[in-house]
């Protein structure tokens, strides 16, 4: 591993450890929910990171539709895959938090349903990328990503415009958060964003390597098929 990457890995893990310390030690215990509310410090930053990655995927897809560059295509698939990882964490930690607080694992309200739909959209994007073999696959995937991104603002705004079981948003939701809770959530978001950037870098390297393999196979089959 190259030195700058190694430094990035060490810094990211230090940030994650500090985030964990903030969540478990520094942040005060919430009065009504108790300690289980500390799931918030992983649940919310994971959601924000997933939204950020889908946002990058949206712009990379538009860029690809206009320019057809391999870099934008690689960025799009990279951010979609890492975004799905973070969205999966949101969908699992949410019900784990809901069970002791609401008494149920899941309810089909607008926020939860639209988040599940968002996850399914990007899962279908990845399935399309993985199993479609036609030359038009990146174009179709980019079009799916552009339209699929429309669900992101819907997920965010769903708790403002619909009556939901899910609490109001942290930013601009009318509620107040203790300054120490704000610090904990922002430190964890910074740590998760650093982790997401690192995962994207590794996934991007993998995409380039896989492209090299595909090009080598194509070149070999061309040489085998050409008259001698």
């Amino acid at each position: 591993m190259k030195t700058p990457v190694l430094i990035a890995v060490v810094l990211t893990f230090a940030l994650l450890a500090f985030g964990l310390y903030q969540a478990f030690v520094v942040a005060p215990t919430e009065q009504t929910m108790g300690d289980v509310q500390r799931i918030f410090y992983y649940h919310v930053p994971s959601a924000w990171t997933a939204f950020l990655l889908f946002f990058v995927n949206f712009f990379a897809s538009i860029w690809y539709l206009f320019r057809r560059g391999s870099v934008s295509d690689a960025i799009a698939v990279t951010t979609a895959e890492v975004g799905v990882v973070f969205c999966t964490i949101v969908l699992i930690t949410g019900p784990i938090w809901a069970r002791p607080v609401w008494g149920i694992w899941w309810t089909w309200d607008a926020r939860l349903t639209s988040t599940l739909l968002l996850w399914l959209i990007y899962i279908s994007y990845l399935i399309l990328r993985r199993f479609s073999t036609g030359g038009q696959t990146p174009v179709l995937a980019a079009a799916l990503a552009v339209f699929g991104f429309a669900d992101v603002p819907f997920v965010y705004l769903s708790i403002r415009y619909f009556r939901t079981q899910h609490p109001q948003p942290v930013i601009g939701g009318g509620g107040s958060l203790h300054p120490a809770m704000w610090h904990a959530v922002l430190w964890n978001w910074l740590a998760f964003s650093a982790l997401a950037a690192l995962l994207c870098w590794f996934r991007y390297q993998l995409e380039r390597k896989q492209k090299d393999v595909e090009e080598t196979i194509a070149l070999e089959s061309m040489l085998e098929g050409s008259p001698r």
Partner: protein
Amino acid sequence: MNPIPFLYAAFIVTWVIHGVYIVTLVTRYRKAERELREFQKK
């Protein structure tokens, strides 16, 4: 209901998902590298 196991479960699940994803990335990268080496040998 004791909520503490739920708190630990959420944190453990988060790290298991990230860990599994990192392992799949490393496995896929090594597989691609191996394939590339084999093609270059031919």
